[in-house]
């Protein structure tokens, strides 16, 4: 809705749930339930978004211009329903996700430097 160039840093930090949704859309457009499943798999079941929570996030991410509805729909091979909408990252959304990932990375660097993650360095 508001595609004007903005500074991604202004939206940081993202909530973990928001970041997971952006990460789920980083590779390809997905519909709502696919996002839920992707997040669940990526986090090995630690983050289970509910339908209500997800669509609250979708609404906000859309209003911020981080995601948009994707015109591209995959073929109806997996029982695609016309009620489903597919979402994809906008360029701005990708920039915000990258900025958040970098922010998290820096935090990890700090944690390592201060020996907080000593035992798990090689993991």
């Amino acid at each position, binding site marked *: 809705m508001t595609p004007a160039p903005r500074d991604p840093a202004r939206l940081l930090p993202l909530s973990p749930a928001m970041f997971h949704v952006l990460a789920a859309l980083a590779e390809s457009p997905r*519909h*709502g*339930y696919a996002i*839920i*499943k992707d997040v669940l798999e990526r986090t090995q079941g630690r983050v*289970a*978004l*509910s*339908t*209500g*929570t*997800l*669509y*609250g996030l*979708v*609404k906000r991410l859309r209003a911020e211009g981080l995601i948009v509805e994707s015109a591209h729909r995959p073929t109806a091979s997996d029982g695609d*329903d016309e*009620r*489903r*909408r597919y979402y994809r990252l906008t360029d701005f959304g990708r920039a915000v996700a990258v900025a958040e990932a970098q922010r998290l990375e820096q935090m990890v660097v700090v944690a390592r430097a201060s020996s907080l993650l000593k035992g798990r360095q090689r993991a």
Partner: protein
Amino acid sequence: MNRIPFRQRLFRVLLRLFPSEFRGDFGPEMTQAFEDERRDAAAAGRTGRAGFWWRTVRGMAMTGPREHASVMLRDAGYGLRLMRAHPGVTLTALLTIALGVGANTAMFSVVNGVLFKVPFHDPDRLVTVRVGAPGSMSAAITVSQFETWRDRVRAFDGITGFTLLSPVLTGHGEATRLAGECVSAEAFAILDGTPVIGRPFTASEDRAGQPLLAVIGHDLWTTRLGGDASIVGRTIALDQEPVTVVGIAGPTFGGPHAYGRTNLWMPLAPCLDRLRAQGRRAQSVNVYGRLAGGVTLPVAAAEMESALERDATAAPDGQAVQVELAPLLDELIGDVREPLLALLGAAGFVLLIASANVASLLLGRAHARRKELAVRAALGCSRARIVRQLLTESLVFGITGGALGLLVANWILGTILAMRPASVPGLHRVGMDWRVLAVCLFASLGTGLLFGLLPAITGAHVSPAAALGEFGRGAAGSARQRARSALVIAEIALSLALLVGAGLLTRTFLHLRPDNPGFKPDGKLIVTVTLPRAPSSKSDSSTAFFDQFFERLRSQPVFAGVSASSTLPLTGNVRMPATVAVAGHPLGRRPNVDMPVVTANYFDEIGMAILRGRGFSRDDSSGSQPVTVINETMARRFWPAASPLGAYITAEERPGLSVTRTVVGIVNDVRGTGNRLGAFSQAYVPWAQGGSTYMTVVLRTDEPAERVAPIIQSQMAALNPNLPVESIEPLNAVLSRSVSLWRFAAWVMSLFAGLAVVLASVGLFAVVGWSVTERTREIGVRMALGASRSQILSLIARRALVWTALGLALGLGLAVATTRFLASWMVDVSPLDRTTFAAAAGLMAVVALTAAYVPARRATKVDPLVTLRAE
């Protein structure tokens, strides 16, 4: 038939937690995602299904309200921007709401403090006891009657006797007379008064012959006794005798008379011992009880009556005694409950008027915004959505106005409390607390809803075609006009009802205000002194003490005159002998004759007039013939035809001491206190022949009380350093206090009525103004066709006249229906007083028509050329 599965119905219900906009946008795909997830969860077994449902319900329940909040915040933000864009309308509306909410919040905090903050649990079960025969019930219960009930009646959880003892505290700063209450050991349990430190006294300590103990009040403990907990177990000097402190009461405990400011509590039986040792009868007490659960008043009363019948000592004359129980709260706050609620109702009227005014204002704004709303509707915004947005905007108004209302409330409350209406109990509990804030918030939100609803609904009814096509006055226009007329009529009606109420209370106040109280209060200070009654005390010692005190004061050049009376007018204090016989005829059990003891110069000094016979002189000494001077009321009551001069009055002036006095003069009546306007029968006794341990000294001086207080105190200290001077204040202050309740009531009601009238006239002014604006084109055409200015004026004014007439008619009806709630505060004025009704209606009519005339005149200034050219 295709039944929708339960899970889908449940999900639809959960979807209803979201705003309709959200549902419209995401509903179908959420349902799809829910179905997908459920299918996968079903494959994961029972645990998977349970986890799925838990996640779904929790997620929907958390996200839905959050979405609502975000919509509301957005609408509120829009509302705030609109408020900034129209500062004139905004300021008027906010001020109006602030006045309405402020009046209500202030009045509610009074009602809350006095009526609702009851310091007892289950107050309905607390009762007072009266005995006697029908028509002459009395709260004076003999000690043996009380003891019979205490020992035999099972209808109570606890029952306590009660009497007053006001000892002087010495040894902790200046000598001070304390307000003490003597109660049974049960009193603390039945009145929720377990001491916060130490203990209450026990039943074994509440027996005759036991030493006096004290539970001290929290205030006294913190202010005079240093707040030191180690005082418990130690002694304090009361009337110069050591009394052991056993406990310290909690800050909210106030004994049975919870609304007063009692300093200490002592066990009843030792108290009665002490009173008797001081030469008092101390034969009767008041009785309070807490009914056992499930026991009704008549059942308890019947049990008490039969207990008395079985016990001959409790009813010595063998007559059956009737017992009457009444809720304690009725005794404490019964007199003020209805009028206070009526004043709260009056504040409610002001709020309604304020709401009507703001509704009218917003109707105008909704009209001005019809284009914007039509565009929204055309873009697919539902009517519910528009109503919601307009309502949210109103709520923003309501809350902002309400916040300002707190400031108004604070001011009104400050003024009310400064008036200290003497007979409204519990005012010290009045203040802002969570209840008051909740009511303020509720009033603000309620007002927002009330005034927002009408404009919201009419606003949402906008037809896009009509509004965008700019057809100014269609069906919606006349509906709006009707709505506004109704609002104006309601405002006039409510204002008139308030005006009538204010008029009635003001008339009562003016009527009671003692322009001529029967004495001259200016330039006089009063000082009250109570002497302790020592066991050996004869009246001689107190007479000697006071004589010295008077002499010392007379020697001070600052006092032009010194006189004294045992009972001062308007204070409610009386000195009633147990028996009085007039010209040989006894007057029955309670003769209702006040026999004040006064110094010989009292009548002259206070400015009373001897109407017949003579006043007292120095010749009326203890050795001369006993004499009395009676007042007009007494003369009329007992000697309606003959002259009372030379007649005899015999009274038991002290226990066991009857004196027969000759009437030597008649003085004018002095006004009674409060609403007891009519004077008592009074028979004055000369100081030298009477004596009293309680005297109020009247000092004639132009100096203020603060300046002469040290002089008075030093004179007292020179005589007895352990005696407190209880109060030094102008006589005028006593006078003013005696009508403080009516001043308070009249002021509050007039304030509300004034607010109402101003608001209603502003409302009328605005509505007539709008109707002129809306009809400018029509007026222009009429004038172009030859209508004269007076015809135009009457065209506009006719409507205002009809509204005013309808408003007045409704208002008079409303006043007739509601003024009776103020009746208990009205003295010698009927709740339907015609003069007041007529004057209020006249005033309202004048104000309303003036408010309508100004904009109507503007209509006559319309230039037909300009309007028609604008077309």
